[in-house]
């Protein structure tokens, strides 16, 4: 049913519809409303789950690792510093092949302390073995949560899933969302039935010492599974579309790319702004388009290569920066494409710096002018040392 909802409310609702048995999370701006709503659902008796209060994100992640290992579908969510504190456990969760679902409300990292949006937090954990999907809007986020459990829990996958939503922009943004019913979600998402779990009748150990004799094989197994996910995820996407009528669950989305001369590549809510700019520039006769990366891990290299095959100029929008190198997405797009393509990288929106239509227009024109691997957009020169000014 269509409703006008705050993002966090919609995401909490989506998590509830997946019937997690254990929820553990530590509140952090801008994720807090999600936890609050879920706690309320449990307190009201609307959701039969245990919420476990903890003293830190490290413990929250550890709790859901334990509950998931016992065969219970588990949910957590965090943001920024919280995700950093979880990091050790985040890698463990993937290594133990526990299909937990986490919502990451994307926010900048300290220092300086900044509660506003960018994607540095989740991008910094791209190597952890989690499937990562980025939502453009609240509807997509809801859909990715529901499909995320289904993808991660496939016996052939058994990997955790991080659904990334831009902090404030989506978490605190209110918009119309078509919320599936419990019956529909129950039909789509069967109860969690893991191929292995901690069970006193059938003792099992998880996360033990894995020496040079076995460790590299565990990494290889995850890597091969990630390759499989590139096929499995779109299959679940087709199932999702059949059930709910929406195409949210996919590797990439192509927007007006067919005859595009310049294309931007981006992840998350900024894709909406880019689409509006594309429609305006197209009206003026400029051939521009967008390649939206929905699934960042596994990285859909072949799909990216195919989508951009005929586009001569590409600009990659990164809401993160691998300091000392370039934006993270830029390096991967560059690696996925042929050498003759002109690919530029743009770092923007860090720490909540507003990305306006003008910013995007400027990125489109700069992408065609000159190749530059790492251009920071909308810098305030008055805040910079003279020799750093642009």
């Amino acid at each position, binding site marked *: 049913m269509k409703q006008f909802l705050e993002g966090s409310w919609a995401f909490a609702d989506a998590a509830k519809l997946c019937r997690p048995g254990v929820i553990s999370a530590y509140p952090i701006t801008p994720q807090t409303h999600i936890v609050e709503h879920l706690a309320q659902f449990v307190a009201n008796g609307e959701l039969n789950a245990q919420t476990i209060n903890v003293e830190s994100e490290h413990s929250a992640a550890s709790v859901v690792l334990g509950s998931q290992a016992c065969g219970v579908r588990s949910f957590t969510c965090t943001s920024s510093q919280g995700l950093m504190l979880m990091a050790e456990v985040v890698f463990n969760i993937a290594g133990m092949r526990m299909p937990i679902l986490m919502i990451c409300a994307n926010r900048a990292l300290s220092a300086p302390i900044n509660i506003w949006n960018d994607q540095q937090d989740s991008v910094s954990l791209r190597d952890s073995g989690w499937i990562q999907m980025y939502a453009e809007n609240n509807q997509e986020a809801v859909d990715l949560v529901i499909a995320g459990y289904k993808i991660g829990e496939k016996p052939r996958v058994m990997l955790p899933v991080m659904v990334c939503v831009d902090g404030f922009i989506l978490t605190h943004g209110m918009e119309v969302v078509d919320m599936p019913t419990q019956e529909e979600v129950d039909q789509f998402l069967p109860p969690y039935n893991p191929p292995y779990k901690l069970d006193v009748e059938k003792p099992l150990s998880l996360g033990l010492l894995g020496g040079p004799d076995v460790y590299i094989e565990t990494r290889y197994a995850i890597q091969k599974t990630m390759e499989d996910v590139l096929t499995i995820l779109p299959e679940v996407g087709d199932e999702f579309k059949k059930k709910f009528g929406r195409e949210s669950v996919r590797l990439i989305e192509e927007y007006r790319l067919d005859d595009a001369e310049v294309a931007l590549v981006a992840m998350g809510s900024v894709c909406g702004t880019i689409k509006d700019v594309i429609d305006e520039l197209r009206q003026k006769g400029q051939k521009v388009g967008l390649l939206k990366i929905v699934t960042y891990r596994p990285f859909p290299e072949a799909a990216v290569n195919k989508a951009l095959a005929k586009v001569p100029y590409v600009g990659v929008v990164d809401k993160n920066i691998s300091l000392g190198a370039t934006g993270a997405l830029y390096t991967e797009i560059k690696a996925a494409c042929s050498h003759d393509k002109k690919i530029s990288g743009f770092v923007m929106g860090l720490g909540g710096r507003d990305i*306006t239509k003008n910013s995007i227009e400027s990125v489109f024109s700069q992408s065609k002018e000159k190749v530059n691997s790492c251009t920071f957009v909308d810098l305030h020169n008055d805040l910079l040392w003279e020799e750093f000014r642009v």
Partner: protein
Amino acid sequence: MKEIKIFARAGQGAITTAAILGEALFYENKYSYAFPHFGAARMGAPMNAFLRFDEKPIRLRSKIYEPDYIIVIDPTLIESQNAFAGLTPDAKAVVAVRPETPVPQASGVEVHTLLAEKIATEIIGRPFANTVLLGAFAKITGAFTLDSVLKAVSKRFESKPAILQKNLDAVKKGYESV
């Protein structure tokens, strides 16, 4: 697409106002994207809430710099926050004023003022001007009907029956006052 910027102090209900506006528009099959100024404002600090709406889903995620409409909940912010800056030609402003507030002037802007805090104090018992302003906004802009705002207010206050009827009356009084 139309854009609305709301001026208030944290605690005066700017986000609630944006939420009710979005809900009312939703009842008329319009799409909107309502969002607060993303900050960590303390009670009493100047803040904004925003809403843009259209016949089709909203994709634009930037802040609003050139609003078609402004709603000023706290008249002390008109000057300090430069509330009339950036307005589009033919913009409309719905402004809560106090008896001592000079009537704001802005060229090309249709300014509607009302003693919203006074009305709210009389009806609700506290100077929460926002529901009064919502009624006035419906009348002035025709963006949605009075019925849609009343329905949206009813939904928003469904868990607070003690203040629901008072707020519905406040909306109606605001509608009649402009």
